């Protein structure tokens, strides 16, 4: 269907089902239980899962297919966010123009940076993109403060023009972003005994866009264009000798991937109308590289899994504090409890980076193909049929 072969179609179908029922998968523990700490089914985090999924899918089109490692992709995400917030300030609180402008701006930006950076390859390309991203960050942080809001970030205000919409709500507050009246932060809750499942408009909006992006990425992977990008990755010199100029292809891949980042940025601003400069900082660029490698470079589903894992750790592990640890191990004798808590403490709370680092090292050493390879290995252990592989891999993000 949709011009996909059977395997890809079933992958898309699985992702769609997972995304649609994520509020259930991500809230497996009843409210009030000790394990409720690990529930990830609240709107903000679910939105982040799919938005960073889009970001990583886009990054993978460049890195996974052409092998060009961009170390400045966060700049496009940031530019997209700023563009979207400006649309909210000037035009209206409808997310459609905001997202459209975010994608276009990021695309233009990527075209300029890509045109310069793609004259080099390998480490020089990485450093060039890193330099451009850091430059954008520095500009946004201080020099361009009137446009970007500087350190505080670009925010909505009551006196923004918003020419096609109300500048303020009836109660005198700043209106919230919506899709033709459907507010992004509206949620309904489904209660089964102690289980609470939250269905959020913004999440499903972002999820639908994510599915479309995922579909497009499959099409790109399977197209002749995708084939050409793979040829560039395997041996660019050979391609030159056959009389083909690879640069238009790499530039196209770079711009597409930049537009994906812009889309993610626009969506982020739509869910939460604020754009901060740190979004463009080099660590943010590094994060998307981590996501892609963690999930599996060059695989379709890998980057989405990687994005989910990193965002889960950032938001869930980092919120466990020593009091919570003590309550978990309260059943142990006093002395032993303290020892166990002391041992675990460096890995939780502010130490979540440490845990992430360890997970990353383990993945890179033992599963060079990322989580997807892990899924394949598990599938090989249990199943006889190879066709089941992606299915196993896709169950990972639900944790």
């Amino acid at each position, binding site marked *: *269907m*949709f011009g996909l072969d059977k395997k890809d*179609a079933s992958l*898309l*179908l699985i992702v*769609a*089902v997972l*995304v*649609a*029922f994520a*509020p259930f998968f991500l809230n497996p523990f009843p409210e009030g239980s000790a394990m409720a700490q690990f*529930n990830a089914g*609240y*709107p*903000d*985090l679910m939105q*982040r899962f799919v938005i960073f999924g889009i970001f990583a899918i886009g990054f993978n089109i460049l890195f996974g297919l052409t092998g060009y490692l961009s170390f400045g992709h966060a700049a496009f995400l940031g530019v997209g966010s700023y563009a979207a917030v400006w649309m909210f300030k000037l035009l209206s609180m409808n997310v459609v123009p905001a997202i459209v402008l975010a994608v276009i701006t990021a695309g233009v930006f990527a075209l300029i940076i890509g045109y310069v950076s793609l004259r080099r390859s390998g480490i020089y390309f990485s450093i060039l993109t890193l330099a451009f991203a850091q430059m954008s960050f*520095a500009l946004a*942080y*201080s020099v361009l403060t009137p446009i970007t809001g*500087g*350190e*505080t*970030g670009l*925010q909505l*205000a*009551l*006196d923004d023009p918003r020419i096609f919409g109300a500048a*303020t709500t009836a*109660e*005198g*507050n*700043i209106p*919230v972003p919506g899709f033709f009246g459907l507010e992004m*932060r509206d949620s*309904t*809750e*489904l*209660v089964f005994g102690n289980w*609470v499942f*939250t*269905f959020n*408009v913004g999440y*499903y909006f972002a*999820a*639908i866009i994510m*599915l479309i992006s995922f579909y497009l990425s499959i099409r790109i992977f399977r197209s002749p264009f995708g084939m050409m990008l793979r040829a560039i990755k395997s041996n660019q010199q050979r391609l030159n000798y056959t009389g083909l100029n690879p640069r238009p292809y790499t530039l196209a891949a770079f711009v597409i991937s930049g537009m994906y980042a812009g889309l993610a940025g626009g969506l982020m601003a739509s869910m*939460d109308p*604020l754009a*901060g400069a*740190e*979004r463009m900082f080099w660590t943010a660029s590094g994060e998307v590289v981590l996501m892609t490698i963690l999930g599996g470079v060059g695989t379709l589903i890998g980057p989405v899994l990687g994005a989910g894992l990193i965002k889960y750790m*950032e*938001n869930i592990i*980092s*919120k466990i*504090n020593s009091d919570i640890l003590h309550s978990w191990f309260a059943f142990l004798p006093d002395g032993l409890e303290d020892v166990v808590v002391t041992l675990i403490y460096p890995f939780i*709370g*502010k130490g979540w*980076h440490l845990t992430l680092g360890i997970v990353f090292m383990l993945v890179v050493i033992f599963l060079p193909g990322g989580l997807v390879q892990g899924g394949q290995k598990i599938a090989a252990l249990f199943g006889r049929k190879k066709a089941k592989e992606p299915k196993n891999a896709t169950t990972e993000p639900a944790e």
Partner: protein
Amino acid sequence: MSKGNLTRRGVLKTGAVAGAGLALPTYLSAAGHEGFTNAPTGSTVTLGFNVPQSGPYADEGADELRAYELAVEHLNGEGDGGMLNTFSSKALDGTGILGKKVEYVTGDTQTKSDAARASAKSMIEKDGAVMITGGSSSGVAVAVQALCQEAGVIFMAGLTHSNDTTGKDKRANGFRHFFNSYMSGAALAPVLAANYGTDRKAYHLTADYNWGYTTEEAVKSSTEAMGWETVGTVLTPLTQTDFSSYITPVLQSDADVLVLNHYGGNMVNSLTNAVQFGLRDRIVNGKQFEIVVPLYSRLMAKGAGANVKGIFGSTNWHWSLQDEGSKAFVQSFGTKYGFPPSQAAHTCYVQALLYADAVQRAGSFAPCAVVEALEGFEFDGMGNGPTLYRAEDHQCFKDVLVVKGKENPSSEFDLLEIVEVTPVDQVTYAPDHPQFAGGALGTCNNGA
């Protein structure tokens, strides 16, 4: 083809049908709607403490968290009660807030607006926090304040000194107890004039972000008002660690005062560089060269070591204050943790208590009721003398301390000495003062 349509429809179905049809009745009953976000239903109420646990302000964040834990103890009637005994409002009785036991969740702002908002959002959406407090940077405070306004919970700002927090970025659901750049300038200027004279030439080094800008503006306008001349202002990147290249031009100018609009590690490095370059031994225009640091904190003084001796600055509160409130707080903090609290700890502790008290007096956790109870609230016994929470901009007005690096510190905590307690009248400004212009409070938001 049809299969594909089904899945997409499936997505929509889950959102629309399951949501609207099935969940709405249960949703209404489950939240026990009292008409505001996260209305506490059980026997407990959850507060969200959102502080920097990593990044440049992690020290302040750790101290803030200690203060919050102490405040929760006192609110729940454990410990010695601290400032509850000296607080002028006696609504709180140590049985939690409105009889509900106080519980809390913590998060890491990383001193980044995005991370801080993500953390605050998870507190609101996942943990059901009815109030968010904390933060150690103005950028974060402004970002989280805007979020709380949208979500319909109360935000009690922690350490944030920029004018914007209660200036152009003020929000109806946000409150600040800490002082601001304008107050620093207004309090410092007379002391500087008395000590250094009124015909000085000042050179500013300013951290290149919002707080730096507002502080520079505040100090510049207050000192110029009493006759000083500003010969140069230079912006330095926030990530700068070596300020040598910025100090050299100061030597070449004819300035005789250097104002360092830096905070945290920035200030420690720039001050150390300035002293190493021998600025303080220079004589310019026949006058001794001086250095001024508008915003001081004990943690910074500790970092800069002997270099802070004799250098003027301003601070919100200092543990050596001798009023009853300060003594009670230092006492219970010291007993629990073994060292005196910082000004960040103080402002956070006070904010937690003020919120609890406002809820108690209002008889409701509803943000609009709390806003009403806090607006124009006058109180005493919290370490800063009589204090007013001004209704127009939700800023606290109280005395400001001008401090000086101590020449002969008696311990590692005894680094600053109080030079003057600037009375509140001298630092009060009109709500529409140019440095605070733009922006509007809006109306309070109860959320869902």
